[in-house]
């Protein structure tokens, strides 16, 4: 039968491709419902008929796990990602994040586009990284927070903000922006996309979960810029 996958919006294309591959193989269909991680989590709390959840937000996954909504032992960190600083010009000069003034100087009176720094994962990680780098206090007043990473990306792509902090995967997909710096992974908690099978899910769901964690799907995710975390890192 069909498998209903609830997935964070930011994994749309990669997940679709992987699911298509699985459908061809298994003859089952995967239906993907995309929304923000918090929305998905709340819907599952309210009894949504999801079979699988691929979230971009570990906190919400923790909540669902605590509520006993996840099938025991099925939670894995399926994907990992990294943060980059982008500029609205594909050929922009690289930026040295270790120099204390470089970011602020490059911004000038422009804005640094990020996802919501206290609510949305990409924003939370970005803020953590800037704090670790000792840059947060100087740029905080210049941060423009979008409701999700894609919106932050759009602000930079449209030339509205000179710089932005987004996932590496987002930066790859948008030709109007260029990566000017990669944020060191050790400046923020690891960026993980947890996957879990829901309690009421049928057999095909577990099968899809296994497929997504397998090598073939891994290739597809890598092709879209995601990283595959070492297993057992939950």
């Amino acid at each position, binding site marked *: 039968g069909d498998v*209903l996958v*609830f997935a964070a*919006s*930011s994994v*749309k*294309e990669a997940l679709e491709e992987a699911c298509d591959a699985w459908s061809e193989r298994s003859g089952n269909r995967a*239906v*993907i*419902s*995309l*929304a923000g991680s918090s*929305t*998905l989590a*709340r*819907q599952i*709390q*309210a*009894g*949504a*008929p999801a079979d699988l959840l691929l979230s971009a937000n570990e906190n919400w996954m923790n909540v669902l796990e605590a509520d006993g909504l996840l099938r025991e032992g099925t939670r894995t960190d399926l994907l990992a990602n990294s943060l980059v600083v982008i500029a609205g010009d594909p050929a922009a000069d690289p930026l040295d994040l270790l120099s204390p003034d470089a970011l602020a100087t490059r911004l000038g009176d422009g804005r640094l586009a990020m996802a919501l720094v206290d609510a949305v994962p990409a924003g939370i990680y970005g803020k953590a990284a800037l704090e670790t780098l000792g840059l947060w206090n100087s740029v905080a007043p210049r941060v423009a927070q979008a409701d*999700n990473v*894609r919106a932050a*990306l759009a602000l930079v*792509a449209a030339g509205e903000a000179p710089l932005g902090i987004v996932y590496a995967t*987002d930066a790859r*997909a*948008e*030709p109007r922006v260029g990566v000017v710096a990669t944020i060191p992974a050790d400046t923020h908690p690891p960026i993980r996309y947890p996957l879990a099978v829901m309690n009421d899910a049928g057999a095909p769901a577990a099968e899809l979960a296994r497929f997504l964690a397998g090598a073939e799907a891994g290739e597809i995710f890598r092709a879209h810029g995601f990283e595959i975390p070492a297993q057992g890192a939950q």
Partner: protein
Amino acid sequence: MTLGLSAEAWAAVGLSLKVSFWAVLLSLPLGIATAYLLARGRFPGRQLLNGLVHLPLILPPVVTGYLLLLTFGRRGVVGAFLYDTFGIGFAFHWTGAALAAAIMAFPLMVRSIRLSIEAVDPGLEQAAATLGASRLRVFGTVTLPLVLPGILAGTILAFAKAMGEFGATITFVSNIPGQTQTLPSAVYAFLQVPGAEGSAIRLVVISVVIAMSALVASEWLARRMARQRGAT
């Protein structure tokens, strides 16, 4: 004719039409009744009712969706009752999208109708009463027909709003292709992919064309009614 859109996208168009149609059709009687109460009623709690009707307009749509989820969700008070008693389920079903659209469009519908009712000359209703029409029949034979252009306008406005509703819908019934993925949800999904703006724009154009056609048709109908009344 695919206009470069996937079957999924076309399914979203079809679903949005279905959702908006039923949302508007089923909420219309309630909308007319509420508008009449607000326009002509003198009862305690009128202001409360008025406020309640406007609530979806005031709240950020996400909040409305969230409240719907809490109320009409499978574990919500009303939702559980309806499901257990009548087998009616809204959660994650297209009917839920219709409910969300209806609630979001309701204030607009009621506003339009109410203004038209207030513009009806009470002298005409009095005249009908002296000719033997009970309050109900006065409403049916005088008030309602005079308000028809307003009802038409309100209905189409509500339809247009329902076609564009996104926040409450995605929060309440999620974004399941073929089941709850309406046109705006599909647009949202496309917007999540850099470079898919083309598809998003094509969908938006379709939605605009549909809503505009409805608007223009309703304007034309309203003028026709007015003209018919105006002379000969």
